[in-house]
């Protein structure tokens, strides 16, 4: 195990840890988005999908724990690496000019923590419900079926006219979601590209493709995820579409 610990603590080992955890989170983000886009198929589609996820509590909790651990691992390695980077340059330059790095690459350490805040907020908002005006949890119906209300929850979460809250608060929440998604896009745009290199999946011939792939995926994620609150705002998704 000695060699393993040495590897795990090494700079490249930590990077690989971050890349693998990031990769799984990345896969989750995609799956999560695809699932949620069912909102456009109507209330019953989304609610059935939600019920399906809730039906296997064991699997659900395993997935949640794995994701939680990965987030912790991801953050932990990023913190260790960031500290190492600071120690490696105790004195900065009076002037420094970038020639190749991107805004996204330079702001990973900003976009990451904001994403963490977002994740926490998102869980409180749409999973736990403590910051939601009226979150309806899934419930077993008399028929024995599990009934979920994801569609109604999403509509209420982003609609300006939801009762029990103000339009200003709701507008702020939507804005936060959209900003967070833009940051996620940036984080992943650089992250996914970075991942290829961190895992040694590089070849000069495919380098451009990796860049294009990462950018495309980032754009899809931003557009896909933002479309949901925007659809609620524009009325495309909402009470009308329900039942």
């Amino acid at each position, binding site marked *: 195990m*000695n*060699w*393993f610990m*040495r*590897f795990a603590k*090494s*700079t*490249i*080992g*930590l*990077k*690989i840890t971050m890349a693998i955890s990031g990769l799984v989170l990345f896969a989750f983000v995609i799956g999560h988005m695809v699932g949620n886009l069912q909102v456009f198929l109507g209330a019953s589609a989304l609610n059935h999908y939600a019920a399906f996820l809730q039906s296997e509590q064991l699997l659900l909790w395993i997935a949640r724990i794995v994701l939680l651990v990965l987030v912790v691992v991801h953050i932990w390695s990023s913190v260790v*690496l960031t500290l*190492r*980077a600071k*120690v*490696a*340059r*105790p*004195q*900065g*330059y*009076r*002037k*420094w*000019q*970038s*020639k*190749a*790095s*991107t805004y996204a*690459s*330079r702001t*990973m350490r900003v976009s990451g923590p904001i994403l963490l805040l977002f994740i926490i907020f998102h869980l409180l908002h749409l999973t736990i419900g403590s910051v939601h005006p009226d979150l309806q949890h899934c419930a077993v119906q008399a028929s024995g079926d599990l009934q979920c209300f994801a569609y109604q929850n999403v509509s209420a979460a982003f609609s300006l006219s939801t009762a029990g809250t103000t339009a200003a608060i709701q507008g702020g929440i939507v804005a936060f979601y959209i900003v967070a998604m833009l940051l996620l896009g940036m984080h992943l745009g*650089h992250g996914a*590209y*970075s991942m*290829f*290199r*961190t*895992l*040694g*999946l*590089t*070849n*000069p011939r495919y*380098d451009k493709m990796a860049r294009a792939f990462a950018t495309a995926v980032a754009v899809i994620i931003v557009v896909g995820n933002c479309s949901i609150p925007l659809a609620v705002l524009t009325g495309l998704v909402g009470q009308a579409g329900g039942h």
Partner: protein
Amino acid sequence: MNLTLHVWRQKGPSDVGQFQTFQATGVSKDQSFLEMLDVVNDKLELAGKDPIVFEHDCREGICGCCGFMVNGKAHGGQPETTVCQLHMRSFSDGDELIIEPWRSAAFPVVKDLMVDRSAFDRIVQAGGYVSVRTGSAQDANAIPISKEIADRAFDSAACIGCGACVASCPNASAMLFTGAKINHLGLLPQGQVERFSRVQAMTQQMDAEGFGPCSNHEECEAYCPKGIPVEVIGRMNGDLLKAQLRGRDS
């Protein structure tokens, strides 16, 4: 032309250091950057003052001695050009230049613009070689090597060990330098036997020297005077991962 130089002066590793301003007058556009500094130094010497210390030897971009930041750009930032090959025609009259040493914990300042890069030597000592005894080699043509592989190995081997990659990296990482040597030897058939122990030993030493991690900013590649590609970092990471999967220890 006339220029204003703000040059970092530091007596030794424990001195705090500060910027000092000099006027470079009557600079010719055909002068190299170091020749411009030579003239400033001549005046300082005649005034009995300490001239600005900077490292240099070949002055043709191959020994890797020279290197400092000019206006925030390693080696002055011209494509594939060391500061000894940078010429004053890249500047114009009245320019103000900020001249700073490489800044990295692993490269302590020796004096003024000169830093200690012996960390690079220790990374190579950790395993950057093929263990072959003098006189024991077989005929040079016994193992054919495809031109493509030989050329790629050469491209990595062209590193001059100047440290611009570390200096320009926001994390002060030495991944480009270390990756270049690992890649050079790792591509060639002669380097295969020690390929995995080499990558483990060299990257361990790289960490021990206090270089930072890679965030794939790719500033190193952009400022590297020899155009070493960031691909070498990917291959090094991959080799280290493979070495782990094989469960080998060096």
